[in-house]
């Protein structure tokens, strides 16, 4: 199986400071990789590097087997990105935002597909045509997830997709992520939710101060909540 995402000895500096230090991992197509780590560990930086926003100080990242810095546009076209604290346009409704950004991504969706996607993230029907300024953080997050799903890209990069969601919605999201992976999509997500990650992820990486300090593979039987939780608490929580 080929790798949808690959980081090879990747080091990144931001504002002159080393932020990622020699990290390597791979995400095979159709799998879910969860990146766990404390604040400032470099999780968001990792995602931005796959999108070609940051230049590697050494090492490289590849998307679908092609180095990102060689063809940024191609990498971005393959990826649906959900930023941390996703803010869509407040003066437009969920429908309008979805239509706008889908068009921006050159993707198409019918009205019923929009509703299906919003159903799958359980956004209240009544809210869908209201301006998004009136939304709670969770509702905004759900809309942004719906957008990532609708993009129909082979790869999803999700930065803390469940932050701001209530526990029921988190469960809902994890089920959805699994379903998308089963349909063949690759997901790299940053999360604080150790429990959820252990439920759905095929691989888990622990990131601490720019270093990969732990890796767990479901096929090797390494993923169970207790082990990962302990490792996270011991190695990656600061």
């Amino acid at each position: 199986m080929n790798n949808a995402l690959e980081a090879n000895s990747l080091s990144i500096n931001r504002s002159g400071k080393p932020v990622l230090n020699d990290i390597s991992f791979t995400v095979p197509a159709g799998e879910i990789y969860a990146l766990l780590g404390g604040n400032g560990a470099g999780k968001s930086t990792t995602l931005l590097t796959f999108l070609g926003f940051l230049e590697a100080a050494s090492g490289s990242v590849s998307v679908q087997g092609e180095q990102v810095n060689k063809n940024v546009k191609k990498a971005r076209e393959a990826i649906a990105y959900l930023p941390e604290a996703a803010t869509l346009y407040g003066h437009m409704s969920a429908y309008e935002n979805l239509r706008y950004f889908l068009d921006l991504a050159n993707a198409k969706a019918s009205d019923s597909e929009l509703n299906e996607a919003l159903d799958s993230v359980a956004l209240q029907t009544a809210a869908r045509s209201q301006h998004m300024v009136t939304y709670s953080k969770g509702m905004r997050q759900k809309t942004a997830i719906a957008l990532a799903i609708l993009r129909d890209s082979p790869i999803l990069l999700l930065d803390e997709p469940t932050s701001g969601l209530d526990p029921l919605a988190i469960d809902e999201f994890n089920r959805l992520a699994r379903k998308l992976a089963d349909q063949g999509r690759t997901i790299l997500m940053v999360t604080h939710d150790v429990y959820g990650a252990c439920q759905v992820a095929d691989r888990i990486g622990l990131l601490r101060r720019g270093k990969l300090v732990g890796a767990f593979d479901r096929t090797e039987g390494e993923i169970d909540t207790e082990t990962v939780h302990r490792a996270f608490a011991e190695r990656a929580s600061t």
Partner: protein
Amino acid sequence: MSTVYREFRFLMRERSALLWLGLAFMSATIAVVLGLKEVSEQRTTIADLITADQVEREVVKKDLADWGSAAYYSFHLTYDEPSDFAFAALGQRDLSPWKHRIRMLALEGQIYESDTTNPDFALIGRIDFAFVASLLSPLFLILLLHDLRSRERAAGRLDFIEATASGKMIWRTRGLLRTTLLWLCLVLPLWVGGIIAGASLMVLLIASAVVLTHLLIWWLIASWVANKDYTSAVNLVSLIGVWVVLAVITPAAIKAGVNVAVPIPDGGEILLTQREAVNDAWDLPKQATFEPFVKRHPELADYAKIDTPFEWKWYYAFQQVGDQNAESLSHAYLDGRIKRDVITSSLALLSPPVLTERLLQKQAQTDVAASIAYEERVRAYHADLRSWYYPKLFKDVEFETELLSLRPQYSTD
């Protein structure tokens, strides 16, 4: 096309952008209306004067007994008809005279009478369309473009948008769309005004292209600043700074520099020189007048002498000598203005607003060249009057009122 449509719909939801576009449209409309009004008033003034001028000459005619008093009491209207596009750029029509009622007396004084100081070179004029297009439109564009990217960054959306759009083309699309819409908001009132005023299609097309080019220059400047990843406030302040430099400081510096580099005599100085010459002539020996006069009119040499204390031919001879005395000043003034205008036109390349205003004034025929051309027409007409009267005055042709209708008529071309 769907990209443009998407961004157009997006823009239509953006209140601040609509506000600036609306204000631009209003400014252009007001400027066009004011310009049309001003030009129509000037046309009315000219039409009224043409009628009054004829009536008055007819009235005066009845009491005339000789050529000398005919020339003395007859005023002749000269005027510079506004072009069909003058409403858009009033230019020199605002600063220097576009009508003179002249007599066959010394001319220089009559030309500069209303003009005791030199006319200013219109670097920044009154509120006409050219003002809106050259000075205000960059400000509207700056307001529209300064925070295109920076406000998305402030909202945490920048990476998201660029990742979703797979590139930075989106900023060009948004920027150019706003630039184009601003252009339409400016040019639409201009075209309506142009159609009302009967301006030619070609002139309207050229003027529209000038405005578009000007806006594109500012779009480049704004994009360059806005791509530097500063905050909206920094972008706004920087761009306003650029505007102040290009639209205010540079024109002022050009004007001051050109004025220092090319000194020209004062219009009032010419007036004074000519009047003094005329006043002094009364007390000078007649020969002092006739000598310089005959140099210009050798064909009248045999007739250039009088024995009585007063004769009209002597009177008009010293009027002309008054002009001759002021001639070098007048030429210096004319040459100086042309030279200043030529230098200013190259220096205008340093300031897109100045260049824009000048190009529009050129289309409107309200530039310095047009103003000078009118002055030259007045001189030529005055010379025609002299050529017509002189043989009659000097050769004692018998006075006939009917012949007065054969006097040269001022024509605008």
